[in-house]
């Protein structure tokens, strides 16, 4: 028998790399180009759009959605899904209000309780999925309903506001602390809102974690082939639980920022968070031709939706037209990203 010098591998696919390919460019940068075009067009039509303040307004408006979307990106990366993020954020909103307004315990306990709840919810989700072997969608849907109800029980379904009447008869003595409110409202240099900084820092940390650290690789490996990853020696269960805890943690931070913005335990806040953040994470698939959940894409996805809404609002588009345009741009952007990309492979 022959000895193989080196196994002949797939004949290198045509060396197209050097030549510029419009298609590849579109796949990679399509969404970013649309975003840029959008910004320019809005700016042209409404100069106020381009002011630094307005740019930070956009970032501020997307910060909570973006945080949730970042969390859900991690669960998407492991091939799962977290439907409970919206209600986790709402829970965190109610919990922080409860701690400050009703229990009158101040800022740090409020933050601690929220973070703990977020991580605990993530842990519970993870356990249901890993130990209870319930499919992700199902487990987190159940959790979502559970939280939707649970968060209202302590107050009997009422919003939590300073001075509200308690079921016991007295009235709430506490209030949102200034420090806590600053979390959502303070602007560094009187320009950059704190939530924006939180979001950007979180996004960078998560990007490093997912793209540069060993843990991120394992998470992606689990999403690609859970069994092979387990056989390669990774403690898959622990990673999955951790992914849901990250998701829960990010959602609870999002909920806290929301609470600080809203300044009240408002029961209806946060209802659209789930869909918007899922949309952001899914749009992220199309950024840089990733075709998979990825942190950078998610951040761009959130920004994309935020810019679109801000711009359309400036142009006086009615709210339902915004939905329509949001859907249309989403579908078109994805269509040409995925539609183009696909003819390449398979």
């Amino acid at each position, binding site marked *: 028998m022959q000895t193989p010098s080196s196994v002949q591998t797939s004949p290198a696919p045509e060396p197209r790399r050097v030549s510029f390919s419009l298609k590849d460019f579109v796949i990679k940068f399509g969404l970013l180009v649309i975003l840029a075009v959008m910004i320019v067009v809005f700016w042209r039509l409404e100069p106020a759009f381009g002011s630094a303040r307005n740019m930070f307004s956009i970032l501020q408006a997307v910060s909570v959605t973006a945080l949730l979307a970042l969390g859900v990106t991690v669960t998407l990366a492991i091939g799962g899904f977290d439907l409970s993020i919206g209600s986790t954020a709402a829970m965190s909103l109610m919990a922080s209000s409860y701690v400050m307004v009703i229990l009158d315990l101040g800022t740090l306990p409020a933050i601690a309780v929220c973070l703990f709840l977020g991580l605990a919810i993530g842990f519970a989700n993870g356990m249901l999925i890993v130990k209870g072997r319930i499919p992700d969608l199902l487990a987190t849907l159940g959790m979502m309903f559970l939280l939707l109800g649970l968060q209202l029980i302590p107050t009997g379904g009422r919003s939590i506001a300073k001075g509200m009447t308690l079921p016991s008869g007295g009235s709430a003595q506490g209030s949102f602390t200034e420090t806590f409110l600053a979390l959502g409202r303070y602007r560094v240099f009187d320009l950059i809102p704190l939530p924006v900084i939180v979001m950007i820092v979180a996004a960078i940390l998560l990007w490093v974690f997912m793209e540069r650290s060993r843990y991120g690789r394992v998470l992606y490996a689990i999403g690609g082939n859970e069994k092979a990853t387990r056989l390669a020696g990774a403690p898959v269960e622990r990673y999955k639980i951790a992914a849901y805890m990250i998701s829960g943690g990010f959602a609870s931070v999002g909920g806290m920022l929301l609470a600080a913005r809203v*300044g009240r335990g408002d029961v*209806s806040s946060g209802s659209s968070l789930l869909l918007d953040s899922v949309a952001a994470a899914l749009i992220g698939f199309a950024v840089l031709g990733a075709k998979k959940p990825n942190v950078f894409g998610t951040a761009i996805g959130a920004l994309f939706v935020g810019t679109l809404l801000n711009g359309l*609002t400036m142009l*006086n588009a009615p709210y339902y037209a915004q939905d329509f345009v949001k859907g249309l741009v989403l579908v078109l952007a994805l269509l040409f990203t995925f539609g183009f990309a696909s003819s390449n492979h398979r």
Partner: protein
Amino acid sequence: AGIAGAPGIFGKRQVKIALVRYLSTGDFFQFYLAGVTRQAAALGIDLHVLDSRQDAALQAEMLAQAMNMGVDGIILQHGLTETLKDPAARAVAEGFKVVAFDVNCENPKIPQIEQNDRELARLSLEQAIRDNGEAFKAGYVYVPGIAPLDRRDETWQAVKKKYPKIVEVARWGTMNNPIANSVADQTAAVLRANPDIKMIFAPFDEFAKGVKTAVDEAGLSKQIKIYSADISTPDISAMIEKDSAWSATTATNSAVVGEVCVRSLALLLAGIDPGREVVVPPTLITQAMLAEKGIKNMEELAAKIPQFSRAEVAMAPWIPEPKR
């Protein structure tokens, strides 16, 4: 440009205002917007509508966005006090003129336009007592946490205290979309469990629609009377149906409220104080009234019940009344 003879900036140039909304879905809000739009048009105002769709944080952001756009004045429509207080104060401090509808910004410089929810509930409940006496078993549809409903609830609690023989035997409610349909399902269950209910207080017309559907389905439209708040064309159709259980509702014409908001802001911009509080009085509308006058939709209602069609508040000679 500008309006000849008008005071302040109205006489000099076109004015640009923003309407920053918290709630927008539903007929009440559509009519409100229609009122704002036509009064603004009558004043030649450049109106921008910013819709936060029940997202309190976004509403605060949109208030900032309106400021970024360099408007002259801002109308805040609904929202949460805690969320809007600071940004509204900042807007006032930066020289923007601000009025608020149905949200208290706790700022003396911000005139408060109100449709008076407590009064609204009171008128409906007084009619209910006229119709049913002071002793009956009642059902109550309520979802806490929504500001106008909470205010209406205060009145209901007061009435129950005042008339101890009015017994609330069941309470239900949901905000699940479509609200009317979900409430109908709930009501069907409640009616079965409590066949002795005589009156249902559903102080939000979406609730009332759902209750009516269930009452009709249960064949109880002659036994039960429904009292509610708010009104719209579909509500009128439902009330004037043969043997409709929906007896009465109390409402302000939200289009009129919209007009009042714009006029108040215009006064403010012109340097005239419209007053700390501008109240638009509600009107009781009963089945009998509708039948008697042959009213079938909102336009006819406005035409035939004068106090519903316009409000003599925040008027000035230089402010043209809009075409209705």
